[in-house]
């Protein structure tokens, strides 16, 4: 048994919210630099150059990379032997988000009700996904999710007979339809299998994986490479102005599913695919 006080959780979440929004991860930065080399369109190269400049300004001046600092999506892996003291874990995470978005001068983008649409003023509540694991670890990952890209995501309940070709068509169709809206070059997270909500969660989780790491399952790894190649033939290009570099990576996760189903979810991220993790 290990005890963790909520005070350290609040501090950690606060810092992760700020770090994720200010500092572009090195895997993304490397991919952007590589895409600059590969881009054939002049205007596309210019856009990538400005995106890299933007990340550098954000880092050095401690500014948000993008004004859409997102809804805070929080993944918590909590060991079953961890005991939280001093208050509620969920309340602590929300307090960390509240402080991080206030102290970091991040935008408050959450409305209390989807129809009434009054801003909560502090970017809470967060979207929190808990995963109970063995042992006494406590890992927190924050992935601020902007809605320019979230809005272009999609989910489809395919038939088993649609097979892998059906999956490929749906991914390609979703990205093609999204066009310039999700701020390309994008990162594409895909979840295949499970139930409807499991597929969506897999797609979201796929976006946490560094984009220079491929899935270990051989056919999934090939599918990731094939889909990246296909997406980069769509012509959308950086900012959607036309070009070769529409996506930086495709990350796919799979899960067992029902004999009657083949759910597929495609969750799109912009070029500022943001996430920060910490282990307490």
């Amino acid at each position, binding site marked *: 048994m290990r005890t963790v006080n909520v005070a350290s959780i609040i501090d950690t979440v606060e810092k992760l919210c700020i770090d994720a929004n200010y500092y572009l991860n090195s895997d993304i930065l490397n991919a952007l630099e590589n895409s600059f080399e590969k881009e054939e369109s002049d205007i596309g190269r210019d856009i990538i150059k400005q995106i890299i400049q933007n*990340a550098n*300004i*954000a880092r050095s001046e401690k500014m948000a990379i993008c004004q*859409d600092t997102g809804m805070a999506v929080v993944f918590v892996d909590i060991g079953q032997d961890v005991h939280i003291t001093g208050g509620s874990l969920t309340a602590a995470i929300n307090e960390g988000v509240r402080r991080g978005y206030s102290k970091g001068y991040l935008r408050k983008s959450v409305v209390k009700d989807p129809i009434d649409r009054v801003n909560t003023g502090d970017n809470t509540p967060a979207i929190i996904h808990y995963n109970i694991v063995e042992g006494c670890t406590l890992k927190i990952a924050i992935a601020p999710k902007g809605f320019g890209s979230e*809005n272009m995501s999609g989910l489809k309940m395919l038939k088993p007979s649609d097979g892998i070709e059906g999956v490929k068509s749906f991914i390609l169709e979703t990205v093609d339809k999204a066009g310039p809206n999700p701020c390309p070059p994008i990162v594409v997270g895909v979840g295949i299998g499970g139930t409807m909500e499991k597929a969506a969660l897999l797609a979201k989780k796929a976006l946490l994986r560094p984009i220079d790491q491929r899935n270990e399952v051989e056919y999934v790894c090939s599918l990731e490479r094939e889909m990246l190649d296909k997406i980069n033939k769509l012509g959308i290009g950086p900012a959607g102005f036309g070009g070769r570099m529409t996506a930086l990576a495709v990350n796919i996760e799979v899960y067992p599913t029902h004999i009657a189903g083949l759910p597929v979810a495609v969750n799109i991220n912009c070029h500022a695919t943001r996430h920060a993790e910490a282990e307490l």
Partner: protein
Amino acid sequence: MKHIIQTPLTKDTVKNLKAGDTVSINGVIYAARDAAHKRLISWLHMGKTLPFEIEDQIIYYVGPCPARPGEVIGSAGPTTSSRMDAYAPDLIEIGLTGMIGKGLRNNDVISAMMKHGAVYFGAIGGAGALIAKTIISEEVVAFPEFGTEAVRKLTVKDFPATVIIDSYGNNLYDTGKLKYRIDQ
């Protein structure tokens, strides 16, 4: 072609702008997004005077981050324009000549642009820190209760943008994509 634009943006200038041209915008532009548009249009339909002049103006679809003390504004890149498609034609009809945002527009907006003479500029989505550096003053001029969605009067210097859809209906999103698309 590269243009240096000084606002207000007149219809004569609009005529010279072609899809694919790059522009550097200088002067006053207005920030407004979802909530502000909804209210502006309801005021317009009620016959109320709008809180800022629309004729020959540019609206930038943006909801900025808060400014640090001593700074003008926080990160301030474009938001997705299609959410303003329901409102834009009415504003174009009363003289709006420019919109800055990112992403696709619908046919109603493009038709209104062609009929009345307006242009749609794309700013780089996700380059909010870079764009913030071109904003030299900021003032909330209407609906402060909307927070980040309030209407702001921004003075910009060398604000970088690209003409996406011109007043003739040419669309860089279509032509650019077609040029690099490989059939598969």
